[in-house]
């Protein structure tokens, strides 16, 4: 079972991964965007890790809701509201439970991902974070590791796509051949989840 502490560690692990990969994310965003995705998420998850540590919300749902609100208040850009909504809506779907299992998380996460689709109006194949999040949500029903692999594969699969949403869509055909920064960071988020699970000895 996953308790609030597990979710705090997930957020901390994401912050660490984003820190490590920030330059790479910005590099990807400079090819088909505006070169800020790395610093955006770095700012956001640094703040998230700090606030969930400080406020120490008592339930998994409260951790993610707080994290989402914090992202919305500190990131800006497209990814702020989108990731903020992902975590907030996932958190809300988790309700007040003190502990949740992977299955429940998978269902809540799928709700969060759906909310991202609704907010941004993107669909699978539009070359956005959804291309990593959708397969991850699906695979999370089976295992943490599978979700991480699905997210990474989904991110990689954005390379040949032409962007239809977000800033990269301005490039038209010139967006083809580059990996989407948001899909790449989404894979980091899900990988951090899998690692947190592995480190905690949680059933994969």
């Amino acid at each position, binding site marked *: 079972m996953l308790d609030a502490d597990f979710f705090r560690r997930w957020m901390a692990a994401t912050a660490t991964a984003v820190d490590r990969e920030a330059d790479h994310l910005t590099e990807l965003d400079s090819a088909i965007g*505006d*070169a800020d995705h790395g610093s955006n998420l770095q700012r956001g998850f640094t703040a998230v890790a700090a606030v969930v540590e400080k406020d120490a919300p008592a339930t998994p749902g409260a951790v993610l809701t707080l994290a989402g609100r914090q992202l919305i208040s500190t*990131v*800006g850009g497209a990814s702020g509201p989108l990731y903020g909504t992902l975590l907030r809506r996932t958190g809300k779907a988790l309700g007040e439970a003190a502990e949740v299992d992977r299955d429940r998380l998978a269902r809540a996460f799928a709700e969060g991902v759906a909310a991202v689709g609704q907010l941004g109006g993107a669909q699978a194949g539009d070359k956005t974070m959804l291309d990593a999040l959708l397969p991850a949500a699906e695979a999370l029903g089976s295992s943490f590791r599978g979700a991480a692999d699905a997210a990474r594969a989904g991110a990689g699969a954005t390379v040949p796509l032409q962007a239809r949403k977000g800033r990269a*869509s301005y490039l038209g055909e010139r967006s083809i051949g580059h990996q989407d920064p948001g899909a790449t960071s989404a894979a980091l988020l899900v990988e951090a989840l899998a690692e947190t699970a592995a480190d905690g000895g949680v059933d994969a």
Partner: protein
Amino acid sequence: MKMLINVPETVVADALRGMAAAHPELTVDVENRVVVRRDAPVAGKVGLVSGGGSGHEPLHAGFVGPGMLSAACPGEVFTSPVPDQMVRAAAAVDSGAGVLFVVKNYTGDVLNFEMAAELAEDEGIQVAQVVVDDDVAVSDSTFTAGRRGTGATLFVEKIAGAAADEGAPLDRVVSVARQVNGSSRSFGVALSAVTTPAKGSPTFDLPAGELELGIGIHGEPGRERRPMMTSGEIADFAVDAVLEDLRPTGPVLALVNGMGATPLLELYGFSAEVHRVLGERGVPVARTLVGNYVTSLDMAGCSVTLCQIDEELLRLWDAPVETPALRWGR
């Protein structure tokens, strides 16, 4: 790339400290990143709030003042501001007559302003939004993020700002803003890529002897790369791209805008070519504004924005304005 900065992390806060010191006529909340005209809220006046990523100065904070914006919310460099800033700005300028958000059409800006509008309405502030989308280099379809907001933002903020200062009610200010946006189109060209403080190197490689056509204001590459063209050829290309979409039937306002690093000497020369092309196409120019107004940090290049006006819009354009970057009328 060398920059006149302390560290990348503080560029926006540093600039706001500088604005605070240089412009006592503005209330600059450095901590919360909101710039408000000193006398806000003005009784009975609709509040005009805009904002967006930093790096486009003087847009937007340089347009705060009587006759234009009531407040501006600067985000991180090239990153839309967060809803908290917009709600705070709305609260600071609302006199009860409501607030108009002027939003450039980028996913980030649209989403954050949308969230802010909901939050502000929760606080009892009446909020309307106008999304500016004038850049013809981007195809406008439901399968894309839609056209970008660029130079027309200045026209919308100036003209809707004049209407608000005259005491027009919110629905009238909104319809003026929509009319200006609907009558405006832009096209931009880059001679060099942009370098953001966070990245520290150019966002794209632009070899000597080539230019990018149809660029945005965030260092996005354009739609097309071509061998270098003369100022006259660029004017032909840009003006025709705008006219093809706008098809004006009367006089226009022209903004001949520098992207930041192009010398004013060159910009005025380019403006002469823009006038030449418009003359050849039979489009009368009512007013021309030449300068660096909607910029992209250290990018070299220019954009052309045309706005077809009627007598009322021209009157509002000519109305007095008193901001750090745009001032006239007495």
